[in-house]
């Protein structure tokens, strides 16, 4: 009882802190926080696949790109309504994920990783080559942030970053909440069953492949949401969103933060962005610095940052108990 109360209090405090960011900090910090939230949405969704189901995808950039281009094209040709655009972006990502997933989920482990890599890179090549639709390597530029229309009449402008911040925050909270609910839902339990022991899950009467495909699509939809929001934030969509180097980002931050918890990927994402930012202020050789930090993190705490934190607190409370 008290524990859950503390948890709610901490969450409420975190949410308040996030909501207060545009009021108390500089614009750049607001922007970085938005980037952290975007990466967080991307990685939290991705971790439903890696952390929850035990499938390593190297092609999630494709769904991210589908979300971004979906929103961009919809905005340019149909209506710039951002909410509809985000919905279209998510739908586009889910459709691409369904196609890719249908081919890939029959395999697991490294074969799954390699197949998703190949499929993602095909999407990348397509976006790069379909210049008349996507703008090629220049990207799809000039995506505008039209005001959000709610309940028929209420118009909320999101043009300024300080306004758009709340748009992102709302989706971030929604995404984290959905991911949280999936993790504690029967569906999520079955997914962790598949991760822990796919064979045994079959012997529980579960059609494992269908579940894999479902979670693949769901996590693709998260990627699509992040992509659509980034398209709005940066006013463009780029082919490199689908590139494997971008697909590797959620892998990296999930591992950094820890696969086992909901907040691991978000912490990893924040660490990833903050670390680069900090290192970059001191040296041009940020790659060296970042590489060394990565080495230390992997060699020192293998459960990721969140794992290390949990261990620390676990040990402390155990010590206090004695």
């Amino acid at each position, binding site marked *: 009882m008290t524990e859950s109360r503390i948890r709610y209090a901490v969450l409420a405090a975190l949410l308040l802190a996030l909501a207060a960011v545009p009021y108390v900090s500089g614009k750049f910090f607001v922007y970085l926080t938005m980037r952290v939230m975007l990466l967080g949405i991307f990685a939290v969704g991705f971790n439903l696949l890696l952390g929850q189901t035990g499938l390593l995808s190297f092609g999630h950039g494709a769904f991210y790109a589908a979300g971004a281009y979906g929103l961009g094209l919809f905005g340019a040709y149909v209506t710039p309504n951002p909410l509809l655009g985000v919905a279209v972006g998510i739908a586009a990502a889910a459709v691409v994920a369904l196609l890719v997933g249908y081919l890939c989920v029959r395999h697991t482990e490294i074969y799954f990783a390699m197949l998703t890599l190949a499929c993602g890179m095909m999407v990348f090549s397509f976006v790069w080559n379909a*210049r008349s639709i996507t703008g090629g*390597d220049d990207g799809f530029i000039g995506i505008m942030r039209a005001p959000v229309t709610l309940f028929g009449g209420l118009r909320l402008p999101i043009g300024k970053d300080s306004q758009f911040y709340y748009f992102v925050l709302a989706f971030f909270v929604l995404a984290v909440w959905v991911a949280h609910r999936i993790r504690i839902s029967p569906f999520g339990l079955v997914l962790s069953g598949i991760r822990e022991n796919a064979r045994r899950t079959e012997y529980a009467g579960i059609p494992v492949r269908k579940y894999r495909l479902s979670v693949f699509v769901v996590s693709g939809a998260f990627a699509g949401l992040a992509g659509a929001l980034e398209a709005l934030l940066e006013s463009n969509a*780029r082919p490199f969103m689908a590139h494997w180097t971008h697909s590797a980002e959620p892998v990296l931050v999930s591992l950094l933060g820890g696969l086992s918890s909901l907040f691991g990927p978000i912490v990893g994402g924040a660490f990833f962005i903050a670390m680069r930012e900090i290192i970059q202020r001191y040296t041009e050789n940020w790659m060296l610095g970042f590489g060394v930090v990565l080495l230390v993190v992997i060699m020192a705490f293998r459960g990721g940052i969140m794992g290390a934190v949990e261990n620390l607190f676990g040990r402390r409370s155990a010590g206090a108990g004695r």
Partner: protein
Amino acid sequence: MQKKGINRRQFLKLTGAGSLVAAAGTIGGGLTLPKGLWAATPAIKGPIKIGYQTVLSGTLAGYGEFHKMGLLMAVDEINAKGGIAGRKVEVEVRDSTLKPDDAIKNARYFVDSWGADFLGGIDSSGQALALAPLMDKLDRVLIVTHAATEKLTEDFVYRKGVRQIFRNCMPTYNDGNAAAFIAKDFPAVKWATVSPKYEYGFTCWKMFRETLTKLKPGVSFTAESWAPFGTTDFRSHINTILDAKPDGLYSTEWAGELISFLKQAKEAGLFDKIRYVMLPVGAAMDVLEGMGKDMPDNLWISGRYYFQYPNNKTNNEWVARFRKRWGHYPAYVSETAYSCVYAIKEAVEKAGSKDTGAVIQAMEGMGMNSPAGHRVFRKEDHQAIYDVPWGKTKADPKFPFKVMGDMKVLPAKEYFNRPPFEGPGTTPPFK
């Protein structure tokens, strides 16, 4: 901070003090004045901060280094002589990694966190175009020193009115249009290309084709071979060209990829079979030095600046100073980075303010002397107009690499697209 800035700008607008200060700036321009005098000018407070981004990692990191050399030289020179309008110049350089999202992040960092007054740099077209829609929000003057896409100035500055963007380097006009002007005098009628498989390559080839067709009806374009970013093996591309048996080859390959391409093409005997070869960025220092004596003779090359042109005191002295400090000949990005700081200096001192609106006003149509010669920022699209030479590669005992001989200099005005950038009469040749 932001609110204060707006207030000040509004204040200046209301009182007309802006023009007053601008006038003061014009009087003082070019003179080295003691700090104390400028300190009395209320419009400029604190140092002049320039946030500069360029690629510092990956295969093209060499360009970033050349940017930095020119940039630091300008900053040191200016600071040694009392700064801009008596204010010290501060510069921070960030790795742009060639990724558009990093370019945006860097720009936001410079403006929103570091407090930059000006932005400079930008290597890739994708980065420039990604950053462009953001510029009126950031509201700082951005001087693009390397990215060449004409869309930046035509679409964003001219059509969409993003007035914060300026470009002081050659756009694709030189790579495409000017190449056609040179090529029209050759007997070659069949042309082919090996170019990068991205917008830059496509655009230049299109410009070249269109302009050359206009200048010399009857030319044909027989083969295109596109090399993705990161290509190191051009043998298949070379085969494509050799199979097509063109008279002329046009290639906008650049940097390391151009070196690989040239070496491999030379081995394959391409230059024995094709007499007319146009390399719009072949005069880049990294290519000339990288190829060294291996560079075939009689290839037509150009660049966005070439250190032997113009052959005047300003340029020659600058090249000498550059060599003394860095032990290199200046690359074109060194010149544009160097001139970028001086353009800021001129504009600020002309405006008497580092305020964005005032500086834009001062910069529009502004002319300045630079190592590359006289530059004028065209009012309509903020594109700097200056001349660069085309010439043929040849050996010179004074240099360990091939240099540009038989220089031809076309006036930039004759081959730069003109506003309104659509409809007849906006693309060369002009009557």
